[in-house]
């Protein structure tokens, strides 16, 4: 439906404004607030994913050359799990949370009520275009909001599929897809939303937040960064390597926000490359680079003078197929291009240091990444890492797995983002937690009101201090 309109007239400011007005009307009618509506929409997403899995796989293959298993696993299955978890917990999430009240507000009872924010905008990314579009939608719906989804135009087949399927399976009075690129996104960003959820890079993240600022709209920004992997000696190198490999190249060929970006290890671990030499990834089980812009960007990183001789494995590329082979570089200089921007591709530089503790300084001297990983059996090193490295999330002895844990908030810090989601955190991200206090007409104290006197001051001090003795003393005129 949205796709058809696009051909007829451009989606401009006026169109965006009337879309928002329409959704506000729908929200105001109260449709999206009922448990039944939220449940039916979540089930719709589930059915949609089940019934169209092959279409999803085909779209992802067209957009990214993504291997079927990755599509099924990292996109469809994860989205399904998200829906199921939300369906299981929804009733509990929707219940008000009773809180304790104290002497200062006695007598009273209080609770925190979750209410939907209203009409929210979700802008998603191209690397996991199905999952990153719909996972936030799960949270928005569970929280009872009306939603506009703007999928990434850099994954056009998935974008079109989402527009078509959401139009068929979801309640289009309250859930809509707007396809398009910069002009459409700009038109959307001019409107007043109750929340904007953006997944992508820091440059556009700033633009989103600046646009949100005009309307005092709160945002969640899921960005990226250079997620480092610190590798210690004295570990099971084979397992560590397997986990690093699958976390890097098994994830969209490195085009993932939490993929290992670079490795830091001590000089005595050069044998790493021999393990990679045996890596099983020389097959068609690899995504291609999403488009020629990114292909050019990545080859530039590889071909920079300082770095081009440091390739120890791989380096092959095919511009016609937009393929770059898994590539490892050893001892790249810290001031090279490849060490100064998020790689987001199948290149893995290895930095060597004299003592592993130096790696923490290296990591902390840069922008805070979305994730950081360490492989070690040394307890002290583990604790030091966990307590001193700041990142969105940390994993010890593995990479990327924290993404799949519903009970953990998934989000960045500093340059890697604002806010978090997954599981209940998604519900919370799209809710307003309203404080509700119930007082009776009894239990008033004259000391609250003017005229103010010193006697009242004494009593007040005692009351706020909370001590019964103090109160008694003040009441009897002593303090």
């Amino acid at each position, binding site marked *: 439906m949205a796709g058809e309109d696009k051909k007829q007239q451009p989606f401009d400011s006026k169109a965006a404004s009337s879309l928002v007005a329409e959704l506000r009307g729908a929200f105001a009618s109260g449709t999206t607030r009922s448990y039944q509506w939220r449940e039916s929409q979540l089930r719709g997403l589930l059915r949609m994913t089940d019934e169209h899995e092959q279409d999803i796989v085909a779209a992802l293959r067209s957009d990214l050359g993504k291997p079927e298993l990755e599509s*099924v696993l990292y996109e469809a299955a994860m989205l399904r799990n998200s829906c199921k978890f939300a369906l299981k917990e929804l009733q509990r999430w929707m219940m008000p949370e009773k809180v304790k009240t104290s002497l200062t507000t006695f007598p009273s009872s209080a609770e925190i009520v979750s209410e939907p924010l209203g009409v929210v905008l979700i802008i998603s990314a191209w690397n996991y275009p199905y999952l990153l579009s719909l996972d936030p939608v799960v949270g928005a719906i569970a929280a009872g909001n009306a939603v506009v989804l703007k999928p990434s135009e850099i994954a056009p087949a998935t974008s079109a599929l989402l527009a078509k399927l959401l139009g068929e399976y979801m309640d289009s009075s309250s859930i809509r897809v707007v396809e398009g690129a910069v002009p459409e996104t700009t038109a959307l960003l001019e409107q007043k939303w109750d929340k904007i959820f953006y997944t992508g890079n820091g440059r556009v993240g700033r633009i989103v937040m*600046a646009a949100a600022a005009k309307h005092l709209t709160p945002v969640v920004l899921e960005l990226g960064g250079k997620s480092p992997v610190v590798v210690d000696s004295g570990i099971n190198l084979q397992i560590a390597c397997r986990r690093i490999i699958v976390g890097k190249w098994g994830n969209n060929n490195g085009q993932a926000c939490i993929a290992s970006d670079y490795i830091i290890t001590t000089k005595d671990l050069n044998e790493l490359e021999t393990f990679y030499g045996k890596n099983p990834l020389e097959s068609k089980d690899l995504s291609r680079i999403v488009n020629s812009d990114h292909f050019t960007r990545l080859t530039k990183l590889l071909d920079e003078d300082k770095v081009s001789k440091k390739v120890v494995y791989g380096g092959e590329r095919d511009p016609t197929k937009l393929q770059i082979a898994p590539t490892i570089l050893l001892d790249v200089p810290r001031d090279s291009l490849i060490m100064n921007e998020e790689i987001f591709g199948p290149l893995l530089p290895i930095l060597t240091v004299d003592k592993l503790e130096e790696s923490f300084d290296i990591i902390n001297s840069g922008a805070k990444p979305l994730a950081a990983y360490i492989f070690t059996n040394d307890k002290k090193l583990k604790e030091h890492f966990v307590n001193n490295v700041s990142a969105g*999330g940390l994993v010890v002895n593995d990479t990327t797995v924290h993404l799949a844990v519903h009970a953990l908030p998934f989000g960045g810090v500093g340059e890697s983002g604002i806010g978090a989601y997954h599981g209940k955190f998604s519900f919370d991200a799209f809710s307003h937690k309203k404080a509700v206090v119930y007082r009776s007409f009894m239990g008033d104290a004259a000391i609250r009101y003017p005229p103010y006197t010193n006697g009242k001051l004494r009593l007040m001090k005692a009351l706020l201090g909370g001590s019964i003795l103090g109160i008694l003393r003040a009441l009897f005129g002593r303090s």
Partner: protein
Amino acid sequence: MEEETEALEEMERELEEMRECYRSGRTMEASWRKSQLKGLLRLLREREEEIFRALHQDLGKHPAEAYRDEIGSLIKSVNYALDGLKRWMSGNKAKLPRIALLTTAKILPEPLGLVLVISSWNFPIGLSLEPLIGALAAGNAVVLKPSELAPECSSLLANAIPYYLDDKAVKVIQGGPGIGERLLHKKWDKIFFTGSARIGRKVIAAAAEHLTPVTLELGGKCPAVIDTLSSSFDRKVAVQRVLGAKFSFSAGQACIGVDYVLVEKKFSSALVELMKVVMKKMFGESPRESQSVARIVNKHHFLRLRSLLLDPLVKSSIVYGGSMDEESLFIEPTILMDPPLQAAIMMDEIFGPLLPIVTLNKIEDSIEFINSRPKPLAIYVFTKDEPLRRSMVSKTSSGSIVFNDAIIQYLADTLPFGGIGESGMGRYHGKFSFDTFSHQKAVVRRSFLVDFWFRFPPWNDHKLQLFRSSYHYDYLGIVLTVLGLKRTNRASKGI
């Protein structure tokens, strides 16, 4: 111009020193955080007289008001933080599905780094130190910029804080909009702002340059909906609470103060009569001499409030009070009955001791009235009617909603204090203060001992089926597939 560059460079140097201090890890220690909180406690106890004097000078507050709203409330909050600190710092275990063998997951809070707290003038001590409590408890280095419109309090803080707190990690920077502007364009790990929506927009726009997260505590027109109460006891309590909440908190210059009242037409005249009686009791015949009404903060705001009453239709709606004295910046607690809804007094946040009463045909109409205006920081409803209560909670939206009282939500450590929409974003108080200045870091620890071989390429149907079973937490399915007893489940042919 040169002076400006020099000043900016000096500021940058100071901030860089503070970042160094933070990086040294000092502020992360529990002992440091405790010592800072205890330092605040000592400041509040030892400098109490000075604080009373400063608040009286800046805003004409009586010590009872100052203690109730600022000092006492802060002491309560510091004690609550000291009590909870160890627990808050230790984070939470996260539940994992059984399939995650030999894996643990936890949410560990960590400080954000160097944070900026900008406070407002109406509760200049309270609104400066309350966020500071959270920032320090969470282990951050902090710059506090108090409001220049409460100069005595700003000076007091600038003098006292370096004495009682760690002056390498906690600094007070005084100044007006120029300094504020300069500070906003620096890189912070968080900005916490209390003030108007207009400046709030500037704060978040500046924060966007550095992707800095913000908490904005703004304001709005907080309505008090007074239902027709049958018991005269209840009526008296309701009126006392509404009038107290309007006039005895910084003379109405409070973000969660009552802005206006909504009442049914048929109850309105009885209400006003009762209000007049209670007003006399609270403020006497001559409110100016009563010492129980704070004054207006400065001439600018005095003139702004005076101009709200210039409109003849507004002026003629005054039913109590109305006198003003520019010399002493005093405005008498004033009640108006049904001023025109288009008048400025009904459009902008009043932030002063003028109380409009708006009459409606039915009390339920108050829901639409409130919803057609920006979401306020608080809604107050005085009623015993259960259906009305439920409607108000579910059909209106505000930072908080309180039944049969006003403002007290500020004192509750267990309730999030913050706004929504135009009234703000983010929240604090109690543990929410700690959380608002923390990053909740996800930490997963895995063992080398267990791995699922099907995690790794090359991919095939067998592995795909194993994954499907895993994701469904279908343990039996996994076992059967491994044993070759479960057929792989494919929806279509090909590949």
